[in-house]
C-alpha cells in the first residue's frame, strides 16, 4: 500500500468502511479520478480564495478567459505545450520500461544548442537548414543520455542521478555558448547566442504557432502504435513489468534499455529544436528552458506513462501555466499562483492513487492479510501432495 493509502486506511479504521486495493484499474476510471482530483483541488483553491476575501469566481473566469477567450491565449498555451509535451513523451517512453530519465531538461537544451549551431553556421535553403537542425538536435539529445544509458544498461548504475546531474552540465554549456563562442555581439542583451534566420512554417490561421505543434501529436500516435501493435513495444513493456521474465523470454534486456534510453533523449532533444524554431525564440540564452523538463516529468508521471494521457495532461498544464501568467498581470501575486499550481497537481496525483482503491464495507470477520508468502506457499504446497 502506498503511504497515502495507508494513511487513508488508518483514518477509516474507526468507520465501518475500509479501503480495498483494486486488482485492476481501467483506463477510463484512471482518467476520471484524475480529472476529479483536479476539479476537487480547484474547488479547494476557490474556497481558500473566498475565505481570504478574494473573488474566486472572477479569478477563475479571468483564467479561463485568458486562454479560451482569445486566439492569443490559445496560441500562448499551445506554444508552452510543445516543449512540455516533447520532454513528457520522452519520459513517458522511459517509464514504460521503469527507467527514470530525469535529464530531459539537459537533453532538451543540448538539442536546442545543436540546432543553434547548425542554424547560425549553415547556408542553404530554409527547409534544408531546418531539417539538418532537427537531425542535429535529435542526435544531440540522444548523445546527452548516451553515458547514463550505457552505465544503466551494462553496469546497473542508477540513471536518476546520472541523468539529473547532466542537466547542470548542459545549462553551463548553454551559458558558455551564449556568453562565449556563439555570442551575439550586436545584440543589446549580453547573454545570447546569435539568432537563427529560419523559422518553421506557421500553422494555417495561426499567428505564432508553427507546425511544431504537430510533432508531439505525431510522436504520441507513433508510440501508441508501437506499444499496441509491435513486438518492440511488447518487449519494452515486458522489461518494464519483469526484467527476469524478459530474460527468460530471450529478450536482449540490456541492449533494449540502451536503445530506448537513447530514444527518450532524442525526443527531448528534438523538442529543443522545435522550441528554437518558433518565431521570436531563435536564439539561446540561459533562460531558454524554463524547466520544461521538470514540467514534462510531472506530466509523464501523472499520466502514468500513457501517451494520450501525456497529450491531455501536457495541454492542461501548459494552459494552467499560461493562465497563471495572465493572472499575474491582473494583480494576483506570483506566490499565490505557484500555490494554486501545487494544489492542482497534488489533486491530480491524489486522483491517480484514488483510482487504485475502492471503499468497501468492513466485513464481520477481518481476515489477516499479512502472511508471509513463503509460508503460505508451503501450506498450499502441502495440500497439493
Amino acid at each position, binding site marked *: 500500500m502506498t503511504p497515502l493509502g495507508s494513511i487513508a486506511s488508518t483514518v477509516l479504521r474507526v468507520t465501518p468502511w475500509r479501503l480495498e486495493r483494486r486488482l485492476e484499474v481501467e483506463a477510463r476510471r484512471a482518467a476520471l479520478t484524475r480529472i476529479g482530483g483536479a476539479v476537487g483541488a480547484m474547488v479547494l483553491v476557490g474556497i481558500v480564495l473566498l475565505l481570504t476575501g478574494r473573488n474566486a469566481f472572477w479569478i477563475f473566469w479571468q483564467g479561463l478567459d485568458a486562454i479560451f477567450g482569445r486566439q492569443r491565449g490559445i496560441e500562448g498555451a499551445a506554444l508552452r505545450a510543445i516543449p512540455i509535451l516533447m520532454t513528457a513523451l520522452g519520459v513517458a517512453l522511459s517509464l514504460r520500461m521503469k527507467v527514470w530519465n530525469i535529464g530531459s531538461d539537459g537533453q532538451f537544451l543540448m538539442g536546442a544548442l545543436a540546432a543553434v549551431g547548425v542554424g547560425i553556421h549553415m547556408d542553404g535553403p530554409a527547409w534544408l537548414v531546418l531539417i539538418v537542425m532537427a537531425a542535429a538536435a535529435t542526435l544531440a539529445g540522444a548523445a546527452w543520455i548516451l553515458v547514463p544509458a550505457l552505465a544503466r544498461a551494462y553496469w546497473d548504475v542508477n540513471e536518476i542521478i546520472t541523468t539529473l546531474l547532466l542537466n547542470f552540465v548542459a545549462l553551463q554549456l548553454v551559458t558558455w555558448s551564449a556568453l562565449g563562442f556563439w555570442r551575439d555581439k550586436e545584440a543589446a542583451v549580453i547573454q545570447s547566442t546569435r539568432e537563427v534566420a529560419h523559422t518553421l512554417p506557421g500553422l494555417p490561421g495561426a499567428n505564432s504557432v508553427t507546425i511544431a505543434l504537430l510533432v508531439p501529436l505525431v510522436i504520441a500516435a507513433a508510440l501508441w502504435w508501437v506499444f499496441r*501493435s509491435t513486438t518492440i513495444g511488447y518487449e519494452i513493456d*515486458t522489461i518494464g513489468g519483469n526484467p527476469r*521474465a524478459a530474460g527468460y523470454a530471450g529478450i536482449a534486456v540490456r541492449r533494449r534499455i540502451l536503445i530506448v534510453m537513447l530514444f527518450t533523449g532524442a525526443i527531448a532533444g528534438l523538442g529543443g529544436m522545435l522550441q528554437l524554431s518558433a518565431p521570436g525564440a531563435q536564439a539561446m540564452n540561459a533562460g531558454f528552458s524554463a524547466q520544461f523538463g521538470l514540467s514534462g516529468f510531472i506530466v509523464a508521471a501523472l499520466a502514468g506513462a500513457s501517451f494520450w494521457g501525456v497529450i491531455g495532461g501536457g495541454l492542461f498544464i501548459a494552459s494552467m501555466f499560461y493562465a497563471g501568467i495572465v493572472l499575474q498581470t491582473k494583480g494576483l501575486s506570483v506566490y499565490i499562483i505557484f500555490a494554486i499550481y501545487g494544489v492542482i497537481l497534488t489533486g491530480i496525483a491524489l486522483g491517480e492513487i484514488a483510482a487504485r482503491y475502492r471503499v468497501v464495507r468492513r466485513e464481520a470477520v477481518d481476515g489477516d492479510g499479512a502472511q508471509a508468502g513463503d509460508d*503460505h506457499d508451503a*501450506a*498450499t*504446497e*502441502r*495440500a497439493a501432495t
Partner: protein
Amino acid sequence: MTGDGTRPSVEALGISKAFGGVAALDAVDFEVRWSEVHALVGENGAGKTTLCNILAGIYRADAGQVIVDGTERDFRSPAHAIDAGIGMVHQHFRLVEPMTVAENIHLGWPETPGVVSQRALVDRTEQFMGEMGLHVDPTARIWQLSVGEQQRVEILRVLARGARVLILDEPTAVLTAKEADDLFRVIRELAASGLSVIFITHKLREVLAVSDRLTVLRHGVREITRPTEGATASEIARLMTGEERVLDVEHRTVTGAPALELSGVSALNDRGIEALHDVDLTVRSGEILGIAGVSGNGQSELAEVICALRPLRSGSITLDGADLASLSVRAVTDIGVGHIPEDRIGMGMVLSAPVKDNAVLHNYWTEEFAQGLTLDRQGVINFAKQLVETARVQTRSVFSTAGQMSGGNQQRLVARREALAADRLLVAAHPTRGLDVNAAQEVRSTLIDKRDSGCAVLLISDDLDEVLLMGDRIAVMYEGRIMGVFDSADADREHIGLLMGGHSAVEAAS
C-alpha cells in the same frame, strides 16, 4: 533458567493453523525441554517453519495453546515472544549490511542506551560475547563477514534479548561444511548451559549428529517425537516421506539414443559458488526423468543451465546430438525446448501485463504472431483465448492482468504454454508447487501427454511422492551431484530418501 533436561521449556498443545483454507498444521503437539537440542524434521511444506513462526509470535495459531516454562502465553508479536524468552533465527538474515556487528546487535533493543558512543557499543558487545562464548569482530561491518559469521551475529542478537529458547530455521542451508561443524559446536554449548535449541532441518545426518530428541512433521501432522539415540536415518526418512499409495501412472522403459545428454556439467550459482559438480544425465524421447532432492541442492541451476539461462562452466549439453550450450535463450526455445520455471511469478510471467501477453511470452517472436515488426494482435488474443480454454485457466478475461489470477491458474497457464512450446524437451521445475490437488493433477497429465507424444521430459520436484509417481527413471541430487539414477521399477523410497539426505550409495545400501 537452567534446566535438568526433563522439564519442558516450551509446550505447544493442539496447534492448528490454516492459510487461505488450507491446513498447514493440524492439531500438532510439540514439546521441548531445557538443555536439549530438539530437531524438527520434515519435507518442504511439512509445517516446520509455520510451527516455529507460531512459537516465535510471528503468526497466531487458529487453535491450540503455547505454554512457556509453565505459563500459558498468547503472543501477538515477535516482541511478546522474545519477552517470554523465545527467539528465532530465520533462514534469511535480518541484518543491516552497511552497519557494524555491534550496531546490529544493539538495533531495536530496548536496553540500548539512548545516547551512546561507538566505543561503548563495542565494549558492551565484547562483554556480552565473552559471556556467551561466541565471538565475531564487533567493529566489522556485516557485508564484510562470511555467511557463518553473519549467522553468529543473528544468534547473538537473539540471545542478547534474553532468549532462552533459540529457534534456528534451516541454519545449515547457507553454510559450508566447516561452518556447519562450528555451528553444531555452538549449539551443543548453548544447550549444555541450560538453553533449549529447536533446530529445523531436513538433513538426516545433522539430525543424528546434533540433536537429543527429534520430532517429525509430515503434511502438518506430527508423526513422532522420540530420543535421537537409537534412531536410524532410514527410519526418519521413512517417517518424513511417508508411504503414500501411488496413483496409477504407467511407467515406460524407453530405449534408444538419448535426446538430452549432459556430460560433466558444472555451473555456479548466483553467489558464485559451484552449484553443479560434474553432472552426467540423459533423458530419452518419450520418457520422464524425475529429479528427486531437497530444494537448493542444485536443481534450479540444472534447469537454468539446460535452458541457456545460466552459463555453463564446464562439460557439454546436447539435444539429439546437437550442442545446446552455445545457443541463445531464444534459439533454445526455437528448437523446441519448453521450460516451466521454478519461480513462476519471478520469472515465468509478467504479473502487471494482461493474460494475453503472458500467453505468448515464449513464442511472440515466431512467424505465428510476428510479421516483421508488427505483432498480430488478433492472433495473440485468439491464441490466448484458446490457451486459457484448453488449460482451464480461470480469469476474468484475457485482457485482465495476470496478477489477478490465483497461483493455480497462473501455473496452469505457464505449464500449458511451455508444453505447447516444447516439441523435443520440456524442463519442468516444481510444476505443481503450491497447487491444489486438481490443479496439480492437470499439470501432471499435461506432462504425461507430452511424454506420450514423444517429448523428453525432465521433471524437477522436491516432492518425492511426485517424482516416484511421475518418473520413468529417477535421479537423486544432493549438493549439486547426482547420487544415483534408478528405473522406476527399482526405485526404493527409503533408499532414495537416504540419498536425498546426503548418505552415499554405499552407506545407503548397508
